[in-house]
């Protein structure tokens, strides 16, 4: 998996990377709660056509700035937060594959939940990322969030 900016990665996010993240942060014995969100590409039907994949593009330099701001904001609000990870795919992600990972670690559960939830919302609002839904018949459509 090639890193573009620290928050963007080519292709789908693999389940094994999620296990790696947990192993990495469970080293921190102050951590009591992990909250994960994973977004996956659904095989939606759109007007009789079935989604095959989503091709994501991003304004990479701007993503880095927005992600930094989101993290700063959340670490300001949640003093119990230990770690916040944001990973978004660029390029092709097929149905049944994961395109977004948000991972919050804190001492107690409440802040892990809230930080994870709010980060997902902020990523959707603020990340300059676009998605092109590609259907099984090779046609495509640009989607809003």
């Amino acid at each position: 998996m090639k890193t573009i900016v620290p928050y963007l990665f080519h292709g789908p996010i693999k389940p094994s990377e999620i296990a790696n993240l947990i192993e990495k942060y469970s080293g921190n014995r102050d951590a009591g709660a992990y909250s994960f969100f994973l977004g996956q590409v659904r095989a939606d039907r759109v007007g009789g056509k079935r989604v095959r994949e989503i091709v994501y593009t991003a304004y990479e330099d701007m993503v880095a700035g927005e992600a930094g701001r989101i993290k700063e904001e959340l670490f300001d609000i949640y003093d119990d937060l230990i770690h916040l990870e944001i990973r978004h795919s660029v390029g092709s992600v097929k149905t049944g594959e994961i395109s977004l990972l948000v991972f919050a670690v804190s001492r107690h559960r409440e802040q892990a939940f809230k930080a994870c939830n709010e980060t997902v919302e902020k990523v959707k609002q603020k990340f300059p990322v676009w998605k092109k839904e590609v259907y099984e018949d090779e046609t495509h459509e640009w989607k809003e969030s």
Partner: protein
Amino acid sequence: MKIEVLFFGVLTEVSKVDKLVIHDVKNLEGLMNELNIRYPDLQKYTFQISVNREIIHKNKSFKDGDEVAFLPPFAGG
């Protein structure tokens, strides 16, 4: 003086390019005039504009090397 203009998402299908270098436009208004001539369809789309990766909401003077981007509604996740 030159600026870089970037297009994203559906707008790349209007511009047919991801990036454009434009010389001698002084400000956003001048750039919009220029682009509306090149790409009359641009007006049909909803977008925000950023200068050097900060979204702007009104006319703005450019300086050499500015990076101006046309951003359709974000669709991450």
